[in-house]
């Protein structure tokens, strides 16, 4: 193995240039206040202090809440689907997983726009409801619209890791559980679910990470006043031009994600 050690070196250089330096820049921006030019640096914690204002805190809380709800719904739906898929014979499973991933081949923006024409007041769903005599239901620019957009986009990220750990599972464990007198419910929770926990945790991390940092979906389906952390950061960089505050927000978000991953990993090792 040590003969390959030198092969790692280019990767270290790559990591330094593409990951370490940008993060360092972000840190630098977050603790200075001189705007985009870093010529005359002044250090300050003003940006982090601003973040503790109730307006911004409530944005964070809303984002985390929405992220958690998305994770829970994705977990329930994704687990069921992954479980069903894993019950088919192997060749069929390949096709079904392919079907799950096909929507991901289409650009996310396009899929989100499709939801707009489905959900809007004069959209397809409301036209259908109208035919049935049910009054138009306001769906666009609500929590519902944002949630459904997020769940649809992120569901595959939950299904695939869960399916991977389910399909790798040794079926004889299940048989053994039955032989020892466990009923199907007991078998599922005590054997199948426990063995799939690594996949579940991976799925949770992926979906949470994606949903907490998204900004396109809430912007299009929730409107510009539907501000989550991602939107707040985007607007600081793109339209407001306050890169320092934007960087501080990004650092806080990165901290939250790091913490979430650490916590999940802890559960993972605790389980084993």
């Amino acid at each position, binding site marked *: 193995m040590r003969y390959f050690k030198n092969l790692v070196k280019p990767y270290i250089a790559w990591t330094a240039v593409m990951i370490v330096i940008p993060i360092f820049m972000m840190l630098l921006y977050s603790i200075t206040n001189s705007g985009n030019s870093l010529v005359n640096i002044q250090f300050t914690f003003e940006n982090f202090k601003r973040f503790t204002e109730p307006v911004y805190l409530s944005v964070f809380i809303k984002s985390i809440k929405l992220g958690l709800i998305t994770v829970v719904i994705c977990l329930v739906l994704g687990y069921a689907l992954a479980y069903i898929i894993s019950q088919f014979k192997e060749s069929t499973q390949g096709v079904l997983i392919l079907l799950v991933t096909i929507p991901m081949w289409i650009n996310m923006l396009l899929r989100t726009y499709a939801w707009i024409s489905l959900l*809007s*007041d*004069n959209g397809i769903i409301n036209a259908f409801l109208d035919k049935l005599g049910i009054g138009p239901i*306001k769906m666009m620019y609500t929590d519902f619209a944002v949630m459904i957009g997020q769940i649809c986009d992120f569901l595959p990220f939950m299904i695939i890791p869960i399916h991977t750990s389910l399909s790798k599972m040794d079926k004889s464990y299940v048989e053994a559980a039955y032989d020892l007198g466990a009923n199907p419910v007991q078998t599922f929770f005590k054997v199948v679910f426990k063995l799939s926990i690594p996949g579940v945790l991976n799925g949770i991390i992926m979906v949470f990470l994606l949903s907490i940092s998204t900004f396109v979906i809430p912007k299009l389906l929730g409107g*510009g006043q539907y501000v989550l952390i991602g939107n707040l950061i985007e607007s600081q960089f793109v*339209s407001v031009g306050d890169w320092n505050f934007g960087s501080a927000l990004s650092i806080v978000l990165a901290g939250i994600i790091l913490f979430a991953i650490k916590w999940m990993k802890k559960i993972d090792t605790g389980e084993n």
Partner: protein
Amino acid sequence: MKKIFSFAVCILAAAVLVGCGGEKTTLKVYNAGEYIDTTLLSDFENENNCNVVYETFDSNESMYTKVMSGEKYDIIIPSDYMIERLAKEGFLQEIDKNKISNYGEITDNLLSQPFDAENKYSVPYFWGSVGILYDSTKVSEEDLEDGWEILKNLKYKEDIYMYDSERDSFMIALKALGFSLNTHDKAELDKAYEWLIEQKEIVNPIYVGDEVIDSMISGNMAMAIVYSGDAAYIMSENPDMRYFEPSQGTNLWIDGMVIMKDSENTDLAHKFIDFMTRPENAMVNSEMVGYSSPVKPVFEELKETVYSEIEAYVPRQNGDKDEFFRYQDAETKKYCAELWTKVKAQ
């Protein structure tokens, strides 16, 4: 023998083509979204044997951020106040008007405006106003008498689109309160901020960008804040829609073509401006996007023909309370930006 000959001809032809490809110059154009008839770009490419790289932005502010981050363009089409800012900060080069053959036909009112008093840096591209587009089947005429205050009318709760732009939203609040839209007074800005927060609480408006066009064509909302040109386009697609400029005054604007200082194809850039101001091209462009053309004969003709029924094509020109945006000093800008972030996040 014949085969070899034709093969040789093919190779030669390919070589010539490749050679041409290498010589072709490239013009980088940066414009607002949904703001050009794209067939004009290919016409321009054919006429001048060049490539046009066309990119779009969704607001002047995001355009500015991109330029600041070092992205290079030859031509940009920003609004008046942003032209002033870019010029003040030294991003623009002077335009040689002798190279713009149709310069004389440009409407006088649109020239020598304070943002570019000597017409050094910009040539008008489109102009217009900001107003309320409303669905005449849903909004009653007498409510309109409230002017901008109609945007706080409980009757239209969750039925209003605002425009997702800092300056335009503050403009509405400032005008509704009777202040100048270029105010530097923090107390006035605070009041405008409160106006917007109050509106949010009463009617829960939705802040959107360019998607307002498609959404209003399908009649999703009763009211929307739009630019006059977008209004004209929407009205030509959906005859129920009307355009209204409140009497408290509104924002008049001129978007102009500017040449960036670091442009390497100054000649081609001038040709582009010349091309866009030629009557036949200005006609195609204005008819397609619905914005009012600065080229006088084109404007006069479209006003009488294609857009004769559509009042939004002719923005109000002599309202004494209407104003152009001006350059904001850094402090006011920062203050507004912070308030605006809070308005949206609230």
